[in-house]
């Protein structure tokens, strides 16, 4: 939860600039947390079952469930929920990224190469400043899980400021707006796909290397210069045509 802590500290700092109250993290069991009438919930649980159970419980309470941990595709497909937003990349996005890396001449990618939402060695687009802040604060590298939690809290704080509300419904409505986008220190504006509430984002292919693992590819890679950021980022993961998600009305 270090990522969420840094996210809350920073979101609170930003909020005070605009006279807003800031972001408070409440931890506890799901019943305890929901009793606090919170607008949004995230978890450290990584199992699909746990994420699905929380998505339903949180959805029923009227709050927004922010999935920063579970990669499972069914959570974005048959089991998608309108009140759940996925910051963690889906398994399909990660697989697509690895495929793209192999297609793009990284045939020599070792079998244990992996794709992830973040890496502590990233430098471009302000990634270095974020990695430095995290390391300075906790004396640890920022992992992909930490980035997902940090970014979840950051975007919630920002959505609240821009929507001028701390209400779950107003925040959910803001996240669903076609124009809503956020900066996650990945160089492109990040936004949620309307068809499954998955965050569009670049992912990084990391290969083991002498010393520390190394980022060897960013996916989606460079494409036609005229493509918009959204078109580029929609090259990985489910598309509007392929999704099996049908949000209950």
């Amino acid at each position, binding site marked *: 939860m270090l990522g969420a802590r840094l996210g809350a500290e*920073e979101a609170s700092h930003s909020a005070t600039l605009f006279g807003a109250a800031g972001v408070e993290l409440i931890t506890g069991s799901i019943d305890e947390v929901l009793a606090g009438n919170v607008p949004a919930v995230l978890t450290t649980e990584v199992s699909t079952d746990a994420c699905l159970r929380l998505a339903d419980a949180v959805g029923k309470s009227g709050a927004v469930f922010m999935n920063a941990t579970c990669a499972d595709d069914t959570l974005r497909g048959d089991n998608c929920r309108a009140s759940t937003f996925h910051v963690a990349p889906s398994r399909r996005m990660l697989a697509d990224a690895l495929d793209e890396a192999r297609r793009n001449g990284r045939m020599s990618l070792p079998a244990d190469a992996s794709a992830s939402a973040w890496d502590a060695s990233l430098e471009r687009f*302000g990634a270095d400043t974020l990695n*430095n802040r995290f390391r300075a604060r906790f004396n640890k590298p920022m992992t992909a899980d930490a980035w997902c939690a940090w970014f979840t809290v950051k975007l919630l704080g920002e959505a609240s400021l821009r929507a001028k509300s701390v209400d779950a419904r107003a925040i959910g409505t803001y996240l669903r707006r076609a124009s809503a986008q956020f*900066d996650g*220190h990945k160089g492109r504006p990040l936004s949620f796909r309307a068809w499954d509430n998955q965050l569009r984002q670049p992912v990084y292919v990391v290969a083991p290397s002498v010393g520390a693992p190394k980022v060897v590819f960013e996916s989606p890679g460079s494409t036609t210069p005229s493509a*918009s*950021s959204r078109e580029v980022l929609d090259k990985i993961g489910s598309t509007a045509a392929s999704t099996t998600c049908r949000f209950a009305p």
Partner: protein
Amino acid sequence: MSIRAVSLLASCALLAAPAHQPTSSSGRLVFVSNEASHDVSVIDAATNAVVARIPVGGRARGIHVSPDGSRVYVATSDDKPQTESSVDGIAILDVASKKVVARYRVGSDPEQFAVVPDGSRLYASNEDGGTATAIDLKTGKHVATLVVGIEPEGVAASPDGRWVYVTSETSNSVSLIDARTNTVVGNLLVDLRPRAVAFSPDGTRAFVTAEVGGTLTVVDTKTRDIVSTVPIEGGEGKPVGVVVSPDGRRVYVASGRTGTLSVIDAATLEVIKTVAVGKRPWGVTISRDGRYVYTANGLSNDVSVVDATTNRVVGTIKVGQRPWGVAVAGR
């Protein structure tokens, strides 16, 4: 044949330019901060030849000329953010001798800064500290530390010296500092990753680039309202540096990832022209006569010279490694 002869003549003229001459015939020198080679390239604007390289001892980023033209200020930092070292500061270059004559401390990891128009003070952003620091330029003494947003970056002083605006990239904010009291009197929420800010010469407008938002935010400085958000390259540009022409009619925006300079009509806020310059232009400035716009291109290690009357690139000058910012002394 005749064309070849002309180009030969031009290159002969370049070679023949006296490299030792301290000021050019036009009296204009262009100073370029090189982040990776830790130095400043000095270009004679009359010949577009590099006449000096001045080592500054650290990553050179923000760069500005003093209002009287006698000094060049360069933000320098070490490769270790979060800790302040002896290299973190503002290097003071003497234009006549082309030497570093002093270094002032302005808090850790200074990146961009602004000098108030009367030359008395300098305000710098501390990227890792969430603060801006003001110092007295006569004494180098600390004047104030102001809490701004997270990851502060762009700094500009209003033409009357009353206001200093500081952008913060993570907070998507612009902090408005009253330079008389040195207090933050307000904050504006702008588009994603605000990188730089520039005032119109009459001080009524401030222009803020948003690198990830791909836009230029236009602020009414009197009402402190956002009056417009102008997409750069259809919102797909990566705007970083911004400068307003001395007559206030044009706004020039350097877009890093697309390698372009957008020329915007300040009255209609329409993009008139998109000029291809070098790779990853960040810093941008304009000569005082409004004739030439210069971009510092970090990945092609050069400076593009754009003629503001034709909006065409009329020169490309090799400088040091990873040029970051550019400033003009003289007309």
